């Protein structure tokens, strides 16, 4: 082999080797990676239009924007009703490490009161500022400032104001209640007030407290609940305290979404054996005692998505309007009931007899969700 041929062959061999080495190196090369700082910015998650025509057009949209880590969220509902009105709810939230902040603007008809035909529609327009300090999953402090105007859209059997208010409120809440196990405690203490800024109509101070304790055995649970509230000063006629039946105002559709409840009674109240809105006043004390028995499954440990339980209860309430007590001393209802828990929905039926009242007629009450 002469030198030239040798050099040529060596070069070829080198090239082939180089080809394989480079190829192999490329094949084993790391995934290209690039580091960047995270910048939070809103992106559209979804946007759902909904249109109906029944002689005139109704259109609604529901949408959500969020940042990738959802530290910012913007939700909106837009509801156009013929040519009469455009209703809108927009809520923006920013989550910092320990605090969350919210800003809501709303102009929307809201169904107020019990969802099964015992309430009324109210047009609400307002703006609310919220801040919430989350100490743990169970403990938080909520602060709220709200300006709202409202008027009724249909008749209601009790007086409803057409007015506006401005108020602030601070609420401390603890909740370590486990629904499936029926153990833990829920309590809050709330202090708020209204002041006639911006030409609003009311001036008051409101205090409200709630305590609920659950003790659970293998298949029985005992629940003790106590609630009290007092408003000093002027307040919307339909936003005082209302007792009678199961007042599940907290599930009244959009009501909780639009922060409607400032300076009104928002939490559920339970005085079974009496009709809805039987007592309406500016101060109350309410206690409930209920014993539940889990009929199926055989222990709370086994409770998952289906359950059936029976219960016996006694409710007692004192209600005042100004200096006058308008309830009995106290108004008492006793009875029994049963609850179905199915696919995350708690459906309750209670049969209650009112004691020490002229109208001693027993009543059935229906409830949705964990009332207390």
């Amino acid at each position, binding site marked *: 082999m002469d030198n030239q041929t040798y050099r040529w062959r060596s070069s070829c061999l080198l090239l082939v080797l180089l080809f394989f080495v480079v190829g192999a190196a490329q094949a084993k090369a790391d*995934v*290209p*990676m690039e*580091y*960047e700082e*995270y910048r939070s910015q809103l992106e559209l*998650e*979804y946007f*759902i239009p*909904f249109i109906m025509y029944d002689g005139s057009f*109704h259109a*609604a949209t*529901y949408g*959500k924007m969020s940042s*990738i*880590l*959802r*530290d910012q969220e913007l939700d909106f*509902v837009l*509801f156009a*009703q013929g040519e009469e009105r455009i209703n809108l*709810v927009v809520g*923006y*939230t920013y989550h910092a*490490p*320990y605090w969350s*902040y*919210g*800003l*809501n603007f709303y102009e929307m*008809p809201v*169904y107020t009161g019990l969802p099964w035909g015992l309430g009324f*529609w109210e047009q609400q327009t307002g703006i609310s500022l919220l*801040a*919430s300090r*989350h100490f*743990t*999953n*169970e403990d*938080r402090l*909520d602060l*709220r400032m709200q300006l709202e105007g409202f008027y009724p859209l*249909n008749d209601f059997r009790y007086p409803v104001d057409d007015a506006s208010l401005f108020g602030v409120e601070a*609420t401390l809440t603890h*909740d*370590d*209640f*486990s629904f*499936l196990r029926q153990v833990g405690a829920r309590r*809050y203490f709330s202090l708020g007030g209204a002041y006639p800024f911006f030409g609003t109509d009311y001036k008051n101070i409101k205090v409200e407290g709630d305590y609920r304790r659950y003790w659970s055995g*293998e298949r029985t649970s005992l629940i003790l609940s106590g609630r009290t509230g007092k408003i000093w000063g002027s307040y919307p006629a339909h936003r005082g305290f209302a007792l009678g039946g199961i007042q599940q105002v*907290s599930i009244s*559709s*959009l009501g*909780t*979404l*639009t*922060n409607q409840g400032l300076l009104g009674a928002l939490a559920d109240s339970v005085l079974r054996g009496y009709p809805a809105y039987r007592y309406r006043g500016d101060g109350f004390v309410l206690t409930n005692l209920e014993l539940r028995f889990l009929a199926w499954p055989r*222990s709370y*440990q086994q409770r998952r998505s289906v359950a059936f339980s029976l219960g016996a209860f006694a409710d007692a309430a004192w209600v005042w309007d100004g200096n006058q007590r308008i309830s009995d001393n106290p108004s008492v209802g006793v009875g029994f009931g049963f609850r179905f828990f199915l696919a995350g929905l708690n459906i309750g039926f209670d049969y209650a007899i009112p004691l020490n009242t002229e109208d001693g007629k027993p009543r059935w009450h229906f409830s949705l969700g964990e009332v207390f």
Partner: protein
Amino acid sequence: MKKHRRCHLFFISFLLFSFVLAFPVQSAVELSKTGAEYRFGQVKALPRPLRWRKLVTPHFEIFFYQGLEELAERSARILEEDAFERVYPDFRNLFTLNPYRKIRVILFASRKEYRNSQASGLSLETTSEGVAHTLVNRLVVIGQPTYRDLRGVLTHEVTHLITIHPFKDHLLYGSGSGVPGWIAEGLAEYYMPAETRYPIREVALRDVVLRDKVDSLSEISTVSGNLHYAEAWSLVDYIARKYGREQLFAMLEAVVKEGHRDQTFQKLFGRTRLELWKDWREELPQIYQAGAEAPPYTEETEPLFPDYRDQSMVKIGPGGEVFFLSNCNGRLYDLFQADGDQVQNLTDRSVFAYDVAPDGRQLVFLSDDEGDRRLYRLDLVSGVETALELEVTNPIGVAWSPEGDRLVVVANIKGDADLFLIDLEGRLLEVIADSEADETDPAWSPDGQQLAFVSPRELYDQLYLWDGKKIRMLTRTAEHHRNPVWSPTGDLYCITGQRGYYRMAAVDLEYGITTHLWPYQETVLEFVPTTEDFLVTLYNDRRFELYRYQPGEDK
């Protein structure tokens, strides 16, 4: 008035529609999640501030925070080199745009931070390891304790996005059926590497096959537990084997566009859904024959602590006390001590691993209640808990040495589990094993001279022994060898088996030959030898139950 009624009806319909739609996509309907809208209810409270960064690769954007740098890089390699290449080619035709739009992956250090983040969009009770937000092409994942689990979870969730996200308009606007749970989860499990599927799922499947209680398609589609995942995987695997893997793409597309109905399946496979289900069910007993003829143990024996559901990680104290973890309080997990019939919860923190000191006066446990995973020491006499500052981060397992002066800590620092020897002050004494594979389940011999542990070799978990100086591979046969435990007299045992049937076995310390000790039908999940008998955790009809077992009592 009539107009008002119409308006209300329309509005209520819209709200209902919004609610129904909002729940499946894991979005909250409240306008501001400050918590202030509701008097009651628990809130998401992050235990510490997180400083987020982003790692960008050709197909992914990976979001991570302090302490997760190596996990993010390992995840990036899994996602790009393994998961994406495994799934995407089969479903390439679903995408009109190439290269594929980047998938956002959000990593969390622990379950606590995952649950408490707004990003996961899940409730505080979630027990999931990750979630795919199919509408927005985003997945949120807990940094898994082991490389194997991380690989499995990432592949599972990426499969959801690749297979379902292209149909987001169908799902969002209802122009077609959704993807039924058995197909969605079946595909996600099918594309996971076989060794990364949780073994407990196939245990659950074997159990219902032996009981002839295999769930219907609609039951499987509720995907409410390990069993449903296993059934979904098994059915999809059956379809792939019988009709060809390429039919999975065709089935998915047809079901979304034409509906989850018999005609769709007849067109594809010539079988109705029920016929397909029956074909699959008939094949299952052949696959799960092992142990089927053995007598059942649980029929005539009562479990210990039946009210404490799903016991795991059972250990025995020097005084015979039984310690165990349970999810009976609805979380993963609570730590209990049983002394006779008296059972008490030892700590308010959730616990995912622990070990008892040789003198039984203390224990160490691992919890993520403060955000990242941490080691705590609990004085069993006074009840005082003390956080132990470790020189190694992200501990996921622990074993207290028989002399009481050292701990072996399993920690995941670089994306896989490694073994470290530390003193009781948390100082690192020695690195025992830190290969690129997982090293887990450390178990000290009673004399403290040897440490058995588990590491995968090819497809199977094998036992290794460390004698203080070097490591040798002990078992080699083609089946899994897991959960090594030592008897008080120095005999080594482990769990062996595959395809959902696992039994306890004695291990020869010289050659690693295993001898099965369990002649019964039920799968043994874990066991502990005591001086007189064994405590065995059995899988029995969707429950983990603890029994006493005396080998001499064999029926």
